[in-house]
């Protein structure tokens, strides 16, 4: 399959975040800002989350999304952005890890 040349309205996380906001939903945007090693998603990738925990997009291969989503709830509540870091092992503060052996930093901010 070829790369899509135009945005997918139904799946693009930033377009979805904009629509959620227009619908009056509180939204958090998580962004991969740094990666080391074999991180599954490149820097700049987005996961968008609403206050009910609905989400679109990804910041990893699915290994750390759960932790990001729960942090996003607090970011939506307080409005204070957070920087999260995930590594290989389960010993990280978030008790989740990247099975691929990489490390990533994820910035989570509230929309509005």
């Amino acid at each position, binding site marked *: 399959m070829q790369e899509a040349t*135009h945005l997918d309205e139904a799946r693009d996380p930033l377009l979805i975040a904009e629509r959620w906001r227009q619908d009056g939903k509180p939204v958090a945007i998580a962004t991969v800002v740094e990666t080391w090693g074999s991180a599954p998603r490149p820097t700049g990738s987005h996961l968008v989350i609403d206050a009910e925990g609905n989400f679109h997009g990804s910041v990893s291969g699915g290994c750390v999304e759960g932790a990001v989503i729960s942090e996003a709830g607090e970011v939506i509540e307080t409005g204070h952005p957070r920087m999260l870091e995930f590594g290989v092992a389960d010993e990280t503060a978030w008790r989740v890890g990247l099975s691929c052996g990489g490390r990533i930093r994820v910035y989570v901010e509230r929309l509005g």
Partner: protein
Amino acid sequence: MDPHLLEQLNGERRARRAAVLVTDLSDGAGRLIREGEMVSGALGEVVARAFRTGNSGLTEAEDRSFFINAHLPQPRLMLLGAVHISQALAPMARVAGYPVEIVDPRTAFAAEDRFPDVPLDPRWPEEVFAERPLDAYTAVAAVTHDPKIDDFALKAALDAGCFYVGALGSRKTHAARLERLKSLGATADQLDRIAAPIGLDIGAANPAEIAVAVLAQVIAAFRARGNAAKVKEKTA
């Protein structure tokens, strides 16, 4: 993030225009920069590189930490002519990250069994471009050898500011083409942008090798965007 900023960013992305979002990680403040806008200071160089490479990342400037998120449209290659070169070029370009669309109103050429898995439009370029406009992130290579098909497409590509415009044909063929394009209203600067004879000079001796030469020239043009002198030098 400011919702208004997100709307502006999405507007640029929908229109297939490049934009860079700079976020100050100390306070979360964001700033949207459109391609061609000048940014002063230490950030300027980082932003310029983000536009050129499409790579995002953290950077330090003025004792602060910034995240630079590059949003570049997916570059694509529009091929005029469902010919032998295109059969080799389409799969190669796709692998290199440049999705291909082939346009050729000659239905004998534009037969789907000759181009498995490649979007193929058997209409005239006029109709296709009206539906899916050319833009700065589209490369156009005209390889039909038929002025009735190529000329309009080349003029449209120059007017749309396509990052690459190439045309197949000998120097003699090209000289005649330049005269025709001039009569269609193309300026000298525009005509100067056409890569012809098409492809980097690697001594290509058959359609597949010409395809390699064209693809390399497309990539060189894409990576040298915003630097006209470099484009000329690299694609000469």
